[in-house]
């Protein structure tokens, strides 16, 4: 079900956490709120859940104005970065909580918990306590718990932030698949652009309490709306007023009219990909991304002089 955010602002003391944000999230979509820390993405998510109150503005869930409603009346599922597991309850009791609070019949609760344990691949773990689970398992339990009462929207606040890289990567794929199965409107907060691009249909880039751009992953990368998005989503080099992605720089060994001289400062081999850091004659550094073959042809090494030519540039007005 859809989420509409209308002119929401929130201030903590002198810090403007969210600054006049309006945003529409379509029903059934999977959206990422992406931004650096302090950009207001978590605050915005917590306002949608009712865990924070906006100073001004309105929130509509499924067309209904819920701005004044307490969190327990909103029908949202919320997943916290640090799981917020009920430590004194078993996995089964954790998942059943939202159903028991709603006084659903016992048989129904049991059946629903069983199917959710299956869904999050925790069957056989039902009688364990959260402390007996790994981080990834705990977060899956938290997800099942949030999904149990069939929420209108599922909100996840940096859900994989506390997990190690491998479990993170696994859970990303798994969240995407889960969403495709349940079709629940889902919004998750992340500061990791790769995570946002990999999982979400739509990415909302936030900075300093404002929305910088809303776009699909590909559009965000290929057609960033401004310099902030250009530099935050993916790497970018600056040539005066123009920006160039590291893979849109061509390196040659002989100068011609349109090239600039630079010295190789560092070469990093990452399997198929090779990353080089160059220092320009004016002292600016450049990041370049090459394939292994290209790097071998150039025989790149530290201290070598190369000539750089952008193959694709982006310029922002004003």
């Amino acid at each position: 079900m859809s989420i509409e955010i209308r002119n929401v602002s929130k201030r903590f003391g002198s810090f403007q956490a969210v600054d006049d944000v309006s945003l529409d999230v379509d029903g059934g979509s999977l959206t990422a709120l992406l931004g650096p820390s302090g950009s207001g993405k978590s605050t915005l998510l917590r306002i949608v859940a009712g865990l924070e109150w906006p100073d001004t503005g309105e929130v509509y869930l499924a067309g209904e104005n819920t701005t004044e409603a307490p969190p327990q009346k909103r029908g949202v599922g919320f997943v916290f970065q640090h799981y917020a597991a009920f430590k004194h309850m078993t996995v089964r009791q954790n998942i059943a909580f939202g159903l028991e609070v709603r006084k659903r019949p016992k048989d129904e609760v049991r059946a629903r918990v069983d199917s959710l344990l299956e869904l999050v691949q925790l069957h056989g773990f039902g009688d364990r306590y959260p402390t007996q689970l790994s981080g990834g398992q705990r977060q899956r339990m938290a997800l099942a718990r949030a999904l149990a009462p069939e929420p209108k929207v599922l909100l996840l606040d940096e859900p994989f932030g506390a997990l190690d890289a491998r479990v993170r990567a696994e859970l990303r794929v798994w969240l995407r698949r889960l969403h495709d199965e349940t079709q629940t409107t889902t919004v998750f907060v992340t500061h990791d652009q790769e995570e946002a691009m990999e999982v979400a249909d739509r990415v909302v880039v936030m900075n300093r309490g404002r929305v910088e751009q809303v776009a699909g992953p590909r559009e965000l990368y290929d057609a960033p709306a401004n310099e902030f998005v250009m530099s935050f989503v993916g790497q970018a080099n600056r040539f005066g007023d123009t920006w160039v992605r590291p893979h849109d720089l061509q390196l040659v060994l002989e100068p011609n009219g349109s090239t600039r001289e630079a010295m190789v400062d560092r070469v990093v081999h990452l399997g198929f990909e090779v990353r080089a850091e160059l220092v320009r004659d004016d002292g600016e550094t450049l990041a370049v991304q090459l394939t292994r073959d290209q790097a071998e042809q150039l025989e790149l090494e530290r201290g070598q002089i190369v000539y750089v030519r952008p193959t694709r540039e982006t310029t922002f007005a004003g």
Partner: protein
Amino acid sequence: MRRLGLRSIALGYLLVVLVGPLTMVFWRSFDKGGAHLWHSLSDPNTVHAFKVTLIITAISVPLNTVFGVVCALAIVRRRFPGAGIVNAIVDLPLALSPVVVGLSLFLLYGRTGWFGPFFTRHGIQILFSLPSMVIATIFVSLPFVAREVVPTLREIGDEQEQAAHTLGAGAWTTFRRITLPSIRWAVIYGVVLTTARCLGEYGAVAVVSGHIEGQTETATLRVQDAYENFDTSGAYGISLVLAVMSVLVLVAMTLLKPKERTA
């Protein structure tokens, strides 16, 4: 080596300050034999004194438990202006001498005090009777539950409670099913300390009770009474019972606690 040294210092200190006196009390109680001890304990005024102590404890402990939990929630969860003052006031009974507490009650409920005339007009006796003794005991045993619960509440944070809210639980359900189970050991420990304090209270109660034998005398006041009347074995006997009660409360808690570990 150093750990061993530290350990023996700690043990020695405990021995001299705690175990020694307790053993002496135990020893001296049976000085004149079990029959004599039983005789002095079964004195009607002594039995009554124990009754008064238990009644006061039975009223003060539940009230202070509820107040302590509410107070701790107020201090930790609601960031209202003046939370710091509440925080400091809760500790006041620890800093204030019980005698001063007793005197201040005297000034409040005395014939010329602020509330005294009001209660006198309605024919309610506060001073020299159970109400003032209960108030005094509540005052001196006030901080223990709050002091135990505050750090535990801080430690568990409020994410579990927020999660419960988003799952549809209201304030009371969240408190009963999430907050209370998480702080229950702090509450129980606070209750144990409060109970021990109530059983042992002397100073404040001594001032407001009027010390009337068989009426407003608690067990601790009775100990003093017996001692001043050269009934030393009686004094030791009552002390022994008080000490045994406190130890039982502590033992009960320790026996209950391991169950928590497996959960």
